[in-house]
């Protein structure tokens, strides 16, 4: 064919094609058909994969001769069983050895206190030792140890602490005469290793098999990888070493039963804790541990004017503060790095129990345990700033804000610090006046709320301090709010009377005394 013939053929082909009446088919119909085809393909692939997996597992089971050997769940059990096995030494647990002993622990504890297996719920009931949900929430952040304790080392000598338990450090494998070792389970074939189980008495309770070495391994603090369960297990071991070296009462940490309580913000861990089970032989008590970056991360109402907590310093320690409230006994210690450890003995831990159980440890023992340096946040924990003296903060506020022409009646104060009262001039109350300081490391800072009618930023002095000023809506009380977000603390003053001169607040909030160097 010549080129002319080629062109002629092409023309006729196109003419033929153009003459074809193309059916009108909406594009969405093609989309639907495509979707169905895609779905069929995916279902076929999933079915094929499932069938292949079933065939492989079946062949594997048949080849092994024991069909149960191919059951996948078995591979998952060691972690839970391991965490509840009191016979494991910390080093073994840290290595994550896949031992499967200790199942009886979980079963026993779960059977005794099913409701208590939810520590979160228990803490909600108590409502006193829960960590604040929002770090830096000023309203619930109170507390500091008495002045003599501030900023000082807790004096918890780890070596000295270790001497608490040497006598119990190498206990016998089990003591059949120990009343606490009375088995709650009649299982004559415990899963424990034979070497740690006395042949004379069947033992399946966690308190019967004791660690061959004292758990002296500190909680892992590798900043690279933080494994919370391991840390909580380490806390448990430390408390056992301090309070129950023979492991007669404090049950080993169980990831399933003891849970965890954390406060995180921006990927940083501000507080970590758990509630361990303390078995007094007939019922369970709760021993809650909370390790926090600072006082602002724990609810500690000692020192607040509005609380009914009964607070006192631990006898012979002078390092810790003990609080009694709501049937709880709490001990708080501030470590040298600013971290705060709170131990809570909760006799009402087991809701199903007919009697309260007691954590058989004195205030001093709890204080010494809380002061143990191994109770620390893992990884690169946030560092809380030095605490401000509530008394100094209050008196400085009165001097700066009230002035000579007025009077101030303080209505509340706490250690966060936050001061509230009434400003009066000429004998008549004029304004509700409050001032507070919140640490910025945990997120405190200025927010222009909807309750504010306007928000402005002002440079208030030659040093360039920028202060946030807001006018509060009248229906919400009116007045103004002045806040300065310093490098360490966000200092705020609010007055319900707009006539209180803001300049007084400017000078107060930007005072360098409220920004202590770390």
């Amino acid at each position, binding site marked *: *064919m010549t080129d002319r*013939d*080629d062109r*002629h*053929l*092409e*023309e*006729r*082909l*196109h*003419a*033929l*094609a*153009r*003459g*074809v*009446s*193309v*059916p009108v*088919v909406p*594009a*969405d119909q*093609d*989309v639907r*058909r*495509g*979707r*169905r*085809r*895609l779905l069929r*393909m995916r279902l076929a692939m999933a079915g094929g994969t499932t069938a292949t997996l079933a065939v492989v597992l079946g062949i594997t089971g048949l080849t092994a001769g024991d069909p149960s050997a191919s059951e996948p769940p078995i591979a998952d059990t060691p972690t839970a069983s391991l965490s509840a096995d009191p016979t494991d030494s910390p080093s073994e647990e840290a290595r994550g050895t896949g031992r499967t002993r200790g199942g009886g622990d979980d079963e026993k504890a779960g059977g005794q206190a099913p409701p208590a297996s939810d520590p979160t719920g228990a803490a909600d009931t108590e409502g006193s030792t829960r960590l604040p949900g929002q770090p830096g929430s000023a309203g619930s952040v109170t507390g500091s140890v008495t002045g003599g304790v501030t900023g000082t080392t807790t004096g918890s000598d780890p070596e000295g602490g270790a001497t608490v338990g040497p006598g119990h450090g190498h206990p016998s494998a089990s003591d059949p005469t120990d009343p606490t070792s009375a088995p709650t389970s009649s299982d004559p074939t415990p899963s424990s290793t034979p070497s740690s189980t006395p042949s004379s008495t069947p033992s399946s309770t966690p308190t019967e098999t004791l660690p061959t070495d004292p758990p002296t391994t500190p909680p892992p603090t590798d900043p690279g990888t933080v494994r919370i369960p391991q840390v909580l297990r380490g806390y448990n071991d430390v408390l056992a070493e301090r309070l129950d070296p023979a492991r007669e009462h404090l049950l080993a940490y169980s990831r399933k039963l003891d849970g965890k309580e954390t406060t995180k913000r921006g990927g940083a861990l501000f507080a970590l804790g758990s509630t361990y089970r303390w078995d007094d032989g007939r019922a369970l008590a709760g021993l809650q541990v909370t390790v926090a970056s600072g006082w602002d991360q724990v609810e500690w109402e000692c020192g607040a004017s509005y609380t009914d907590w009964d607070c006192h310093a631990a006898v012979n320690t002078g390092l810790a503060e003990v609080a009694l409230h709501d049937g709880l006994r709490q001990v708080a210690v501030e470590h040298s790095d600013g971290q705060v450890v709170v131990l809570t003995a909760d006799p009402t831990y087991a809701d199903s129990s007919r009697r309260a159980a007691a954590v058989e440890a004195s205030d001093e023992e709890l204080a010494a345990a809380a002061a143990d340096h191994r109770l620390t946040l893992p990884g690169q924990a946030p560092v809380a700033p030095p605490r401000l003296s509530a008394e100094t903060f209050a008196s400085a506020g009165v001097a700066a804000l009230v002035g000579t022409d007025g009077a101030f009646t303080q209505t509340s104060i706490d250690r966060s610090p936050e001061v509230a009262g009434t400003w009066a001039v000429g004998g008549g109350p004029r304004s509700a006046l409050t001032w507070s300081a919140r640490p910025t490391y945990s997120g405190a800072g200025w927010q222009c709320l909807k309750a504010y009618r306007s928000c402005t930023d002002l440079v208030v002095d030659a040093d360039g301090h920028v202060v946030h000023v807001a006018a509060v809506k009248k229906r919400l009380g009116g007045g103004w709010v002045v806040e300065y977000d310093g490098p360490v603390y966000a200092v705020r003053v609010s007055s319900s009377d707009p006539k209180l001169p803001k300049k007084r607040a400017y000078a107060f909030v930007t005072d360098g005394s409220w920004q202590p160097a770390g």
Partner: protein
Amino acid sequence: MGGTRDDGFTAYVAGRRSHLYRTAYLLCGDPHRAEDIVQTALAKLYVAWPRASRADSVDAYARRVIINSHLDEHRRPWRRESPTEDDRLDRAAPSGVTAEDSDALWTALRQLGPKQRRVVVLRHYWGLSVEETAADLGVSPGTVKSQTSAALEKLRTALVVDPSPRGGRR
């Protein structure tokens, strides 16, 4: 099956479906089968849309799917029945091409084998080069040339017998 896939596919179908349909029609000569081929090809294209849309030419991908779908359709057992001249049997619906316009060329096309017909459609309807046609069909350029030569030789006969120009319809 996200919106991106649907949007792109819908836009492509809206713009190119008629062209694909005509291609299928030239390949099989039956509007119903052509519609089947196009539907099958577009369903395949939808599944492969993420990959096809990243290719240089979606048209090339769609063209190959049309060709292969036609091939698959042709291979199906129920397509293997012998043609019949019995007028009592149902026939395909009118395609819109007048008998005068289509008869000679269409008769010539029907005389071609499937492979030769595909070569003719790709080269003279799509206007592809020998290499592009070879790539589409998965054969060597030499095969394309030989099949083109043989196909045109058969068409020449038909066109010589009926040389009347039909370009006036354009």
